[in-house]
């Protein structure tokens, strides 16, 4: 049985529309216009228990709306969703006890008291046995290295520290389904790494299913074998991260360092950058071995690196291709 099953899920909102200015505002008093915005269109996918799936897309693609529907915050306009066997929009208490939604830019803890007190409140809300609660809390404090910060009022914590205690609080009831919306947003690299490691550890320990959105591709590369790419409310790709690279970016990058000054390599492929004797060349994946051999034969090469394109470039290409395919469907949620 799948952990998350989504079929034909759609969500639309009616938003007021009017021109700027006082005249338009007065006109809208008697003639109010709205426009239907389709944030998510007919989305379908399934996620197995224990999987960590990256949910990628640009701002306004429908990622967060989908996560909100899967956590029960929003009612779908059409389609069905099942999470751990529950229908999220019914928000059964037993469902809410088994999942969590973490939003990187939102604060859910009580601002004026230490995180430890908020943890205690969550113990009561989620009906956690005292022993189990203490064990999990101490385990999380250890894993996230929070000993020094859990006794400070939340308002006195830095962004990164706050995110750590937020994540810990949201997982104290050991949910089996995690919806993480930009959990590392605004954090420094070290903190991002720690959060990633924690999510991975949690996933392995509790076999939890994780659906993660992030604009930091390092998060995706570190955690997700599978990605779902969504744009304009539609799924563009659902599969292995490595397949995404193969399908949308059939190119390689050759970084060549020549021994004596600069040479013109434009006949081999697209020159992406060129400085200090170091030339970055983009060539088709098929021709890469042959071109590499020719470069080594024909030029005084001091160093040569063959790289896959960065995941950011791949994603950018996916979106660019989808816009070319559907120029009139650009709607934002």
């Amino acid at each position, binding site marked *: *049985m*799948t*952990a998350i099953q989504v079929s034909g899920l759609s969500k639309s*909102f009616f938003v007021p529309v009017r021109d700027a200015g006082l005249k338009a505002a007065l006109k809208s008093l008697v003639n109010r216009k709205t426009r239907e915005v389709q944030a998510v269109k007919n989305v379908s996918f399934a996620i197995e*228990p224990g999987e960590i799936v990256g949910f990628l897309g640009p701002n306004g693609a429908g990622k967060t709306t989908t996560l*909100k529907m899967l*956590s*029960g*915050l*929003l*009612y779908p306009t059409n389609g069905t969703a099942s999470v*751990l*066997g*529950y229908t999220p929009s019914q*928000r*059964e*208490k*037993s469902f*809410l*006890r*088994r999942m*969590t*939604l973490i*939003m990187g830019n*939102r604060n*859910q803890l*009580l601002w*004026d*008291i230490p995180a430890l*007190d908020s943890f*205690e*409140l969550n113990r*009561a*809300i*989620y*009906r956690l046995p005292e022993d189990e609660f203490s064990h999990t809390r101490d385990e999380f404090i250890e894993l996230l290295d929070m000993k020094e910060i859990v006794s400070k009022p939340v308002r006195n914590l830095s962004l990164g520290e706050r995110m750590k205690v937020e994540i810990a609080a949201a997982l104290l009831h050991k949910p*089996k389904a995690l919806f993480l919306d930009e959990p590392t947003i605004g954090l420094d690299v070290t903190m991002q790494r720690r959060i990633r490691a924690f999510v991975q550890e949690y996933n392995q320990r509790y076999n939890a299913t994780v659906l993660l959105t992030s604009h930091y591709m390092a998060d995706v590369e570190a955690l997700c074998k599978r990605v779902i790419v969504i744009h304009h409310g539609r799924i563009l790709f659902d599969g292995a991260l490595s397949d995404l690279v193969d399908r949308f970016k059939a190119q390689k990058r050759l970084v060549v360092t020549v021994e004596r000054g600069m040479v013109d390599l434009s006949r081999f492929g697209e020159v992406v950058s060129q400085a200090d004797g170091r030339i970055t060349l983009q060539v088709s994946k098929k021709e890469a071995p042959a071109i590499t051999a020719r470069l080594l034969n024909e030029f005084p090469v001091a160093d040569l690196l063959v790289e896959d394109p960065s995941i950011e470039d791949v994603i950018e290409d996916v979106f660019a291709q989808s816009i070319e395919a559907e120029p009139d469907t650009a709607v934002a949620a």
Partner: protein
Amino acid sequence: MSTMIKSPTRWQEIKVLLDFYPNRMKYSAIIKAQYRLSAFLWLIGLAIEPVIYLVVWTTVAEERGGVIGGYTAGGFAAYYIVWTVVRVMGIGLNPWVFEWRVRQGQWSPLILRPMHPIHDDFALLLGDKVMDILWLIPVVSILIVAFKPDLHPTWWQGLAFVVACLLGFIARTVWMWVLGLITFWTVRVAAIFDLYFAVELLLSGRVVPLDLLPTWARNLANWLPYQWTFGFPIEVMIGRLTPTVTLQGVAIQLVWIVVGWTIMQWLWRHGVRRYSAVGA
């Protein structure tokens, strides 16, 4: 995948609430205690209002031979001193809280908890009241010394006062919720609250004891929730009601709670479907 878990039984839910309320109240009181200056200034503001009413009505009573509508100067003093306690106990949520929750998506964390969000508000307000009552002790003591109230409650009146205050608080909070949930449709709700508060000011016994109102206004007040959340507990405490009338009043308070709760639940079920969780 793990199998579905059975929904908690009613008893399990009650146990959760019995655990949650003291904890939430405790943290609410701790937070309130952190902002001492704010609490002190709020208390000053709270004490000024009944003192104004008290001075005005005591003066009027003295000019008219000492008694108005059955209230002596000592009776007015008793009314408005008990007023301060009932006012503190009745304070609930303001419209800005509901508007903020809808506009900023602040319902989201509450909706995702396996507990009705109204419990968080009840517990938060009750915790606040623990601190408020502590702050109130010196204020009430000063008022008693200054105005010499004619206040001699019996044990049952004292007990009934506590019950009536608590039920009044529950009824008022539930009705605030009824109004507040309209924000799911309108986003802004301050004007509706203003209308509610304006009528409440007159027909609850806040500005003037209900016995001093014209008959038509008293009859109207009987059919509205206001006096059952404010004037009724005061009249219980100052000894103007018989045990039978007191019991009837408590029953009416319960009816208003049940009616309000039913409407609130209906609005919640339908309103939350309209929630767009914008910003969160």
